[in-house]
């Protein structure tokens, strides 16, 4: 029981991070990734199963919300920021895969 819920939480964590990395806007993307990491880390020693379930439910709702907003941002598009995301700048926050593709064509 504990092992499966741990796996479930980790799956949720990974899914949320994966989804957040697709935000087009730099500020939203970095905020989401940072907040998800910090929030999961802060609650990692939670023992009470009722509380854990409440947090998991909240995380699921937040994942749905992130999915919707990412969809919206992919449709609407977002600006790139000068000198933080512009040509030849890499961001620390997890989309280095984009950048390698970029360099190959650049």
């Amino acid at each position: 029981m504990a092992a499966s819920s741990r796996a479930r939480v980790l799956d949720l964590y990974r899914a949320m991070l994966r989804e957040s990395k697709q935000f087009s806007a730099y500020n939203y993307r970095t905020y989401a990734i940072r907040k998800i990491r910090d929030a999961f880390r802060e609650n990692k020693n939670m023992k009470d199963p009722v509380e854990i379930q409440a947090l998991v439910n909240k995380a699921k709702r937040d994942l749905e919300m992130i999915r919707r907003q990412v969809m919206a941002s992919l449709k609407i598009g977002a600006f790139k920021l000068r000198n933080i995301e512009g040509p030849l700048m890499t961001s620390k926050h997890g989309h280095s895969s984009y950048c390698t593709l970029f360099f190959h064509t650049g």
Partner: protein
Amino acid sequence: MLLRTAWRRVAAALPAAQGPSLEAPTRGLRLRVADHAPQSAVPSDTATAPEMESVLRPLYMDVQATTPLDPRVLDAMLPYLVNYYGNPHSRTHAYGWESEAAVERARQQVASLIGADPREIIFTSGATESNNIAIKGVARFYRSRKKHLITSQTEHKCVLDSCRSLEAEGFQVTYLPVKKSGIIDLKRETHQLVASHICPRPGPGSEPATQELEAAIQPDTSLVSVMSVNNEIGVKQPISEIGRICSSRKVYFHTDAAQAVGKIPLDVNDMKIDLMSISGHKIYGPKGVGAIYIRRRPRVRVEALQSGGGQERGMRSGTVPTPLVVGLGAACEVAQQEMEYDHKRISKLAERLIQKIMKSLPDVVMNGDPHHHYPGCINLSFAYVEGESLLMALKDVALSSGSACTSASLEPSYVLRAIGTDEDLAHSSIRFGIGRFTTEEEVDYTVEKCIYHVKRLREMSPLWEMVQDGIDLKSIKWTQH
């Protein structure tokens, strides 16, 4: 539940197929290639994001002017912009009922952020309208017995202008000066050379005394209005003490908390606040909405400014804009959850910014008290550098000198003048805003560019040369031709 099912229907109806995450990298790649080579054919695939300008945008470091919408707030607002478009005052059908339910939910969210009862929250079009209602409404209601108001010299323009218009109606207003730290003087403490609108009381020697709050309260004072966090210098006023003084003297206390709500803990009962103005777009909510808190126990009577169908308890007639109000409520709820996390982060980033700049540049002054200070608003004066030219040089960062409302005029900010800043330092001031979404990289970049350009501008400045040679600029007699 309702929202989620509604959203599933909307999502199903969306025309373009949202591909799985595997497709995202190529979509992102195409966008970047398009940015880099604008002459090449724009991809005709309608599933890609529409072409954004190929010009890159500056970093946003001006959160005191306005803030971006939090994605959670947009998420809460969208259903009410798309599907639940009813008028909350329609009593006869489901569109009205669900809209009204949303408005009441938002009211509860705003109230719980400040420790109020939902019946004490009135939705308005923003903090400016709330300030107008608070000041003009209270003054006019009690005009038969009370003709005096007190405010401070560092208030927002809308407060000062409301007071000015009341003066034209026959009221008397005291504009309290502030100490050099930017904080209101509560009791007779120190004597300072600060210009005051009221004739200074003669004190020992030739220095005028500062007007302090307790002494300024007269028997016919109806209202004291002092903002919680200043939007230009970030100074936090001692709200609890002011509330205590006002309630002991039976005077209503209004605070413009537009920059403070959701960022520092505020409780209207602990701090004895009778009226409070809230702004939506300062707390990652939508623009065009705000709220005013008006105490019910003991009841504060306010004369309504806007006549009409009697909505919002008759205090503010007009259809309540459901999507905006839902956004404000969501912003308040998010702010309540994130307050501690954001405050810790913003303090760390602010510390980083100030330390790095102060370490690398001499002759930099931080305006406003460094202790009673909201960390996200940093106002620095760079001596021997012209503020406008520094702003132009920092074209990759969106900053401001002085508040957005007064940036049209060329005169230095009245707030800086009120805290006794020299003319030349007031012209060289820049306001850095750090918010929930600001990253360490943005702060580092801003600091780096700021240091570079200040050094460069100082190199070009003859005044700086003279200072380096040890000449005291104040001793120079500038000749007139």
